[in-house]
Structure formats: structure tokens, C-alpha cells
């Protein structure tokens, strides 16, 4: 019995449906990204405007309320409510990019490719820098983010370099890598147990392990659903925290 683990290219790279080789090559990742726009649109449009919410309206309003309360209000406060559209769209885009990891026939998180996390990290980066410059002015923003108060003058150059790296380079890098690596790791984990199940499915004494492997696979699907939600939450929460840090000199 031999365990044939597929190469990573088979796991994360998908052939283009059309436009192969061009900059608009449309593959599964692009399809999931389009669905991540269409599904929220349909859901929001289906939601009625009753005073007593039912069905889809409950889901939609629950999502909006979750983002408003748990992300915007808890990280920024009432002054951040005008950034709700940005944070809500980040939340939705990340969540739908992730949740296709466990949806049959897709079985692929769009965020296990670096493209979408990079786009979202750039959006977050541009947002917190733009909001910071708008709130404090260019000089004020650079001063508050590069020259933290209370640091001895001798250490200031070093601290400034560290602050510059951590604020302007590590923040977007961390956002993108966190999301990407989480989803890729989850995807590989699911693939590992799926491959194990397939390999064990044969007349052999080793088939006795199959139930455990399968139970693990089922458990991991639940775990990955949770991870999808948490990553969407964490990505929007971190963006909100960075916006909050840009709003005021600290």
C-alpha cells in the first residue's frame, strides 16, 4: 500500500476556464471571487424590510450587526461607524473566499492563493494610511506612527526604523500571510485526511483505521468552517484596529 500524496500544484492551482495565459485567465479562484460578490448581493437583496426579521433577513441583519458591534464598535468605537461598509465588505469577501473550502465541488478556499489576501491587505494598508493622513495630516500621521512619544532621543532612530517596518511593511505582510497560510494549512490538512481515507479504503487490515481517519476528516470540516469565520473576523478586526491606531496620535 502506497500513500500517493498529490503535489501542491494539484492542490492549489486550477486550470483556466477561459483566457488561459492572459491576465484575465478565469479559473476556480476567480469564480469563487465572483461568487463572493454575487452571494452577498443576492442575500442582501432577498432580505425583506420587516420590523420582525425572519429567514434571510435575520442572517443579513445578524451579519451587519455582528460587524458593527464586534468589529467596528469594539475596535474603533462610535466614530468608526462610517467605515462599516469597508469592514463589512472585507468580512464578507474573506468569509466567502474561505467557506468554499468545505463546499463540495469547490473544495478550495480562494484565500489559499496569495492573490486575494494580497488585494485585501493592500486595501487595508491604503485604508489605514489614507484615514490616518486624513485625520492627522501627513506630518502628524508620520510623526505619530514613526516617533512614538516617551522614547529617549538616542534611541529614536532605531525605534523609528522598527516602527516604520512594523507599521508599513509588517502589518500588510502579516495580514496577507495570516489569512493565506491559515487557509492553505486548512486545505492541506483536509486533503491529507481525504487522501488517507481514500488510501485506506481497500481490503486490508489497515482498513480498520479508516473510521478514525474519516471521523477526523468530518471533525476537521467543522473546524475549518469555524476557522473560516474566525479568519474573516480577525482580518476585519485587525483592519479596524489599524484604522483606530491611525485616527488618533497615541
Amino acid at each position, binding site marked *: 500500500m502506497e500513500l500517493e500524496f498529490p503535489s501542491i*500544484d494539484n492542490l492549489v492551482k486550477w486550470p*483556466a476556464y477561459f483566457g488561459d495565459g492572459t491576465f484575465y485567465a478565469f479559473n476556480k479562484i476567480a469564480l469563487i471571487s465572483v461568487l*463572493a460578490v454575487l452571494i452577498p448581493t443576492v442575500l442582501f437583496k432577498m432580505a425583506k424590510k420587516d*420590523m420582525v426579521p425572519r429567514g434571510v433577513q435575520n442572517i443579513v441583519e445578524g451579519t451587519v450587526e455582528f460587524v458593527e458591534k464586534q468589529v467596528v464598535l469594539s475596535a474603533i468605537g462610535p466614530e468608526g461607524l462610517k467605515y462599516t461598509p469597508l469592514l463589512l465588505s472585507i468580512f464578507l469577501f474573506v468569509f466567502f473566499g474561505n467557506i468554499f473550502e468545505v463546499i463540495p465541488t469547490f473544495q478550495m478556499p480562494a484565500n489559499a492563493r496569495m492573490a486575494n489576501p*494580497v488585494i485585501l491587505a493592500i486595501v487595508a494598508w491604503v485604508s489605514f494610511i489614507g484615514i490616518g493622513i486624513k485625520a492627522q495630516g501627513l506630518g502628524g500621521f508620520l510623526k505619530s506612527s514613526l516617533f512614538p512619544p516617551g522614547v529617549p532621543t538616542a534611541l529614536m532612530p532605531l525605534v523609528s526604523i522598527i516602527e516604520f517596518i512594523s507599521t508599513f511593511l509588517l502589518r500588510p505582510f502579516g495580514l496577507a500571510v495570516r489569512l493565506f497560510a491559515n487557509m*492553505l494549512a486548512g486545505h492541506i490538512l483536509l486533503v491529507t485526511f481525504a487522501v488517507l481515507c481514500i488510501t485506506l479504503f481497500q481490503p486490508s487490515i489497515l482498513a480498520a483505521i479508516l473510521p478514525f481517519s474519516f471521523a477526523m476528516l468530518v471533525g476537521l470540516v467543522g473546524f475549518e468552517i469555524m476557522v473560516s469565520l474566525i479568519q474573516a473576523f480577525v482580518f476585519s478586526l485587525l483592519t479596524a484596529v489599524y484604522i483606530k491606531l491611525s485616527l488618533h496620535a497615541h
Partner: protein
Amino acid sequence: MLAQTLMLRFGEDGEELEELVEVAADNPILPVTSELFWGAITFAALFLLVKYVLLPPVQKTMQERADLLRADLDAADAAREKAGSVATEVSDQLADVRAESAQIIDAARAEAEAERARIVGAVEVEVAAAKAEAEAEISAARQRAMAGVGPAVADLAADAASRVMNRPIEAGAARPVVDRLLNSPN
């Protein structure tokens, strides 16, 4: 390898940049141009949709509900306050009524007491008058009876005494003695 590719990226040689593109296509970590393109377009679309089309009506509904809830709560508070004031009013009135009734009862009781005292007094007076009259009548009758009885008893006593002593006793002489005996309280 990432470090190498990054170094290549910041290198100035054009050939190395071409090499970078080939490496990027093989590397499972670096983003692919087409996916970046679609990701950017779809996210921009989602953001614009959420900001201008999808979110405002939902937020409006939620705001309306919050307002409605607040209005209902305010109305409930007002009603509760009103009910409280009505209740205090009622209890005040009740206390008033209770005090008044107690007053009326006290007055009635005092009046009844006075009436009773008056009636009892009148009856007592009447009874006392009747009693006195009866006593007077009794004593008069007694006097009368004594007066009637006295001579007969004196005669009888004198007769009896004369018989005992074998000598005649003057009835007139016995009379004062008999009267004294009769009148003395025995």
C-alpha cells in the same frame, strides 16, 4: 526562495526579472496576475455594492426598528408612570375615604352613645319617679294598714292580757303600748 525572488525583484537586470516571472508561476506562494486581477475587480465591485446599494437599506431597516423599539419603550415608560400616578391617586382617595368613613363612624358612635345616655337617663328618672311613687304608696298603705290594725290589735291584746291577769285592763291604757310595739322595728 522567497528571499531570492525578492532580491531578484529589486535587482536591476531585466533578464533576472523575466526569471522572476517564471519562478513566480511555479511558486505556490506568490500571487498570480490573473487571480490578482479578478480579486481586485471583484473586491472593488463588492465594496461599491455594499457601500451604495446593499448596506443602506438594511441599516435603515435596523435603524427604524431601533427607533420603533425606543419609541415603544418610551411609551411603555410613560404608561407605567401614568399608571403609577393613577395608582397613587387612587390610594390617596382610598385613604381619604377611609378617614372620612372612620370619622362618620366615630360621630355616629358618639351620637348613639349620647342618645343612649339620654334615653337611659330619662328612663332612670322615670323609673326613679315610679319607684318613689310606689314606695310612697306602699308606705301610705302600710300606714293605713297600721292605722287600721292598731286599735284591733290593742283591743285584742288588752282583752288577752285582762284574761291572763284576771283583771280588766282599760283599752285606752293599752293603746299607746301597742302602738309603740307596732311601730318599733322588730
